[in-house]
């Protein structure tokens, strides 16, 4: 299994949607960490675990953009079936991520 711990590996204070919105955006997280980590997990035939706990908090736009781009790149069902999201502090983040993964299919 490949693991991303967002507060430790990316930022404890994630930002908003795109680079234009400021540092540590969902788009930046996708480009710098999420995309390659998921690709590695796919190549190894393992799941990607993403740990959200320990941050100062997430905006919906950060979560939506990062995982929308992941779903667009690898396919929504494949992504959702190969992700393990750890969000014990705020469980509702998991549903927001799922919405992001499937966002391109509902447009």
């Amino acid at each position: 299994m490949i693991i991303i711990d967002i507060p430790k590996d990316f930022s404890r204070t994630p930002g908003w949607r795109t680079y234009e919105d400021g540092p540590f955006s969902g788009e930046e997280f996708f480009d710098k960490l999420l995309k390659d980590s998921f690709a590695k997990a796919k190549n190894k035939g393992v799941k990607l675990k993403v740990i959200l706990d320990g941050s100062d908090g997430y905006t919906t736009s950060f979560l939506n953009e990062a995982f929308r781009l992941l779903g667009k790149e690898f396919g929504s069902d494949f992504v959702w079936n190969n992700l393990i999201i750890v969000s014990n502090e705020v469980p509702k983040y998991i549903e927001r991520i799922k919405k992001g993964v499937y966002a391109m299919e509902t447009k």
Partner: protein
Amino acid sequence: MPKAMETVWGENGRCPELFGTIGEMLRNACDHAFTNGHKIVWHLGVSHLEHQNTVKFSFVDNGVGIINNYNNRTNWAKVLAVFKNNAAVLEKAYKKGIESQTGLPWRGEGLPTIYELYNDNIITNLVVITNNVYLDFDKNIFKEINVPFSGTYYFWKVDKTCKPAYFV
């Protein structure tokens, strides 16, 4: 945020949902409040009432306001045909979002996320004033007012009646 949690709960801690929601307000201010992004002005006020274990927050931007912003960009007459007035539109926007019914471009879920924080009892006494609309969710008052305000103002409290959604 850690200081606010200490005032209310007696411990320094993170409150991810409140932190994220203030982020939504900031984002809305930048996205919706101004036509000229270089003139963004907002203010976050935090008052600690230590003897009452209460923290009062206010967030204000002096942009065009939520109603005027969408009035400028969408067919507001069509929206108002569905709802009885601006206050009813915004009540719906905060509680459930209205994109699916009206085609309004609420791309994010910022407004419902703000209400969700209140509905989950992580904050209390949520009041929103924007343009000619006054929303007081505690008192169930959603009305138009005669003193239009160009901008968006939020007020809320965190006290001991709230859910302790903090992490040390």
